[in-house]
């Protein structure tokens, strides 16, 4: 369980988030959507604590983030963002191993190596383990980072949730990779202790794969809850100012969204 | 963040260093050959290493050079001294380098470095000798020669040298009557670096020699040498310019010297009164000082009235 309570973010005269309170459930794909400037990115940065200057509070497993050290946070929360590059050449497995850094002191233990290997198997990058990261394609790089981020929270911890935050990780990726990625996410969500919160720009993708949707507009929370409720014609029309056409499939629990 | 600034700063840093490297490289080429000189006095029982150019000239004048086994790089007079092994520049010495010449005594004038090297030699209790007389004017130089004569057991020779100095200085003063004019002189040492001239001042040893030679130093100053811009040289408008050997030889002949910025507009350049002098004649006093002063008298009054 992750809760954000009364989050307000101001930069100068501008209010980016205005008293937003929202909570996210484990085992579900929680997606934050909204038009440009709605505050999606700001909200995910507050949740990940990349942005620390805000009013209101964020709780991980009912613990206030202000009382957690960077390392403690890193042991249960992983963040995948877009377009990460390295300043120096490293091997692919060395990049993935970074995910284990919050867990060991100086040299990787057996269990860390196992996590790295399993994650690389899961993302089909095991055969490029020895390759130079800098020579990979964009899609391959993003898979490496997905593997890295997941090794960070590879093992469940009794009585605690694990948190995976996605800050527009699909930007600039091909449709093929986007779908591969979303399918992988769904596979991961079989772990019922995993809380996944993502910012996605593509509404169709959100409608197709999301479970819970959090709809922001002009820094305010417009609606949040199961996607079939949130993605109503009225909500979408008022936020995006376009006439939507929605195809709901209540049996498969999917929504397809088009605009006129 | 991977901007090229670090490179820029980096090279700027080396730009600064370039100057000193050029300086050093030239020192090395200047002394080239001297670094490979062989020690031909292996059998000597007394082995002297002397690290001061003024002392070295006096040692040769006294005829006490027999046991001199190595000298510093800037000791260049008399010409025979260039056949001795050198232990390098007198402010960049190394303990081992000096000790490898197996000295029984090291003579220096305190103008040596780096400091730690001198401390190391003190700790190893290597015998060192500094003479008392500072040798910074004629009487003190005579004292120095007397002192060194006593030290090397060449007292008679020392007396003779001092008599020669006195005689020649007296003669020089006498000759001054034939030179009523007092030309303004600038002495440029070391050529130039980006049109900045290292110039000897009235307070330097060379300044005193010019005074005795009946000239007037155009550049005043307490310190021996000053870095001066071309404008100041031009403004001082000397009648005579003297260039030391190293700077002069780097330029291709007189015409190029006359074209130097700051120099070209002076009376000296217009009247062909620019001359080459040896650095080791100008920077300290010694047995030849009277002789040198007389030569300078002739030099700085040459082409007068043209």
């Amino acid at each position, binding site marked *: 369980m992750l809760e954000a309570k009364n989050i307000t973010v101001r930069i100068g005269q501008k209010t980016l988030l205005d008293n937003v309170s929202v909570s996210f459930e484990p085992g579900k794909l929680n997606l934050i959507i909204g038009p440009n400037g709605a505050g999606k990115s700001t909200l995910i940065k507050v949740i990940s604590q*990349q942005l620390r*200057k805000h009013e209101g509070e964020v709780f991980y497993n009912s613990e206030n983030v202000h009382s957690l*050290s*960077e390392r403690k946070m*890193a042991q249960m*929360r992983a963040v995948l*963002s877009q377009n*990460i*590059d*390295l*300043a*120096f*050449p*490293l091997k692919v*497995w*060395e990049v993935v191993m*970074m995910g284990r*850094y*919050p867990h060991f*002191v100086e040299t*990787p233990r057996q269990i860390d190596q196992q996590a*790295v290997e399993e994650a690389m198997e899961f993302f089909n990058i095991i055969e490029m*383990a020895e390759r130079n990261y*800098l020579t990979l394609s964009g899609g391959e790089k993003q898979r490496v980072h997905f593997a890295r981020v997941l090794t960070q929270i590879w093992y469940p911890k009794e009585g605690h949730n694990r948190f995976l935050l996605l800050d527009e990780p699909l930007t600039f990726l091909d449709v093929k990779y986007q779908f591969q990625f979303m399918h992988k996410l769904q596979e991961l969500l079989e772990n019922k202790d995993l809380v996944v919160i993502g910012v996605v720009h593509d509404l169709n993708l959100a409608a197709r794969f999301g479970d819970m949707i959090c709809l922001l507009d002009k820094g305010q929370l417009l609606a949040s809850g199961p996607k079939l409720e949130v993605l109503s014609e009225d909500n979408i029309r008022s936020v995006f100012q376009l006439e939507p056409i929605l195809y709901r499939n209540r049996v498969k629990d999917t929504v397809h969204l088009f605009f006129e | *963040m*991977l901007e090229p*600034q*670090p490179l820029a*700063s*980096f090279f*700027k*840093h080396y730009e600064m*260093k370039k100057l*000193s490297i050029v*300086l050093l490289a030239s020192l090395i080429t200047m002394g080239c050959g001297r*670094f490979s000189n062989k020690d031909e006095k292996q059998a000597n029982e007394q082995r002297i290493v002397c690290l001061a150019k003024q002392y070295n000239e006096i040692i040769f004048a006294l005829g006490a050079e027999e046991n001199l086994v*190595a000298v510093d*790089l800037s000791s260049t007079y008399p010409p025979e001294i260039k056949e001795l092994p050198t*232990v*390098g*520049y007198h*402010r*960049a010495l*190394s*303990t*081992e*380098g000096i*000790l*490898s010449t197996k000295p029984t005594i090291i003579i220096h004038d305190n103008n040596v*470095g*780096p*400091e*730690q*090297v001198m*401390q*190391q030699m003190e*700790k*190893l209790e290597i015998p060192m000798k500094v003479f008392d007389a500072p040798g910074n004017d004629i009487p003190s130089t005579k004292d120095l020669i007397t002192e060194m004569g006593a030290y090397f057991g060449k007292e008679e020779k020392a007396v003779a040298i001092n008599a020669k100095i006195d005689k020649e200085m007296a003669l020089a003063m006498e000759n001054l009557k034939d030179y009523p004019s007092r030309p303004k002189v600038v002495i440029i040492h070391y050529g130039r670096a980006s049109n900045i001239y290292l110039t000897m001042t009235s307070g330097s040893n060379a300044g005193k020699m010019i005074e005795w030679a009946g000239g007037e130093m155009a550049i005043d100053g307490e*310190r021996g*040498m000053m870095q001066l811009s071309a404008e100041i040289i031009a403004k001082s408008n000397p009648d005579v310019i003297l260039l030391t050997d190293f700077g002069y030889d780097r330029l291709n002949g007189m015409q190029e010297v006359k074209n130097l910025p700051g120099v070209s507009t002076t009376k000296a350049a217009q009247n062909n009164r620019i001359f080459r002098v040896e650095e080791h004649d100008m920077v300290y006093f010694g047995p030849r000082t009277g002789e040198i002063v007389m030569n300078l008298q002739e030099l700085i009054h040459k082409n007068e009235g043209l």
Partner: protein
Amino acid sequence: MKAFNNQNKAWLMTMLVLMVVTFVFSMKLGAITITWEEIQSTLSKWMSGQEMNLQERIFFQIRLPRALAGVFVGASLAVAGVLMQALFRNPIVEPGLIGTSSGAAFGASLYFVLGAVMEFNAGEWTLPLAACLGGTLSTVLVFLLAQNRSSGKSSVVALLLTGIAINALFLSGVGLLSYLARDPQARSIIFWNLGTLSGANWISISIIGAITLICLLVALRYAKPLNALMMGEDEAVFLGVNLKKLQIIIIALNVLLVAVATAFVGVISFVGLVVPHLLRLMKGSDNRFLLLGSALLGAIMLSLSDLASRLLLAPAELPIGIVTSLVGVPVFIALLRKKQYFF
């Protein structure tokens, strides 16, 4: 299961052996010929506390400390290079970037020019102290000026740019001092800026050695966060790195390493830049490996440079800064041309 661990032990061992061999040569060779028997007798006399003869004292008080200085100073400059390149996420950064060596040079120049005038005097320690203070002062200045007033955080870009500015300031200070200086003092400044190991003694070696080892051990504990920093500051924080603490510790280590080494041996350039570079070309950029490897390779490179500096013109001496530049510049340009790093 495949072991995902650094397979670099063999490399490190090879370099360790090479370093020992270089050290032995550096101990054996020099302007004065010293035989194996003399080395042996010196060591046994040292252990039994007997009186040594002159040759043995030369070995013990001059040669041995100097050979050790090559090892320690080389190691400390190369380790500092790794730290700075990792912190600034930039392979062409050298340890002097944040002002440490130019500050040290300024401190030393101040001593050379004002030494006689100043009342401040700590005997033979005055020069190292002045240099060390200068180096620390300039780095602290860079760090304080680079702080962002609103967030209290200093980004590496701000540090880098401030470093460049402060470097320029202190270097022109050095320039001004050598301009004002009398000729012999100016020469002292020039030669100090070219570095030499010839002044090494047991006390300076103990200080440099202890600082080098302690800093290396501390640095190894920060190899992980420095690796994480390769992905950027935000990503490093996501991996549990306390960025502010990391910056302060790495900069403190760099000041200790560079200021102390520079204080005793003068400015020696290129070692901190080229050594980590070479290792990256051979074996990638894992900072744990780079730190250990650079310590060894730095020691090897500086020992070899010092051998060249004392043998090429023996009995005269070539400043070691010239040797490292002569070797370093071509290597550096070759590296730049290879475009290995996607600048």
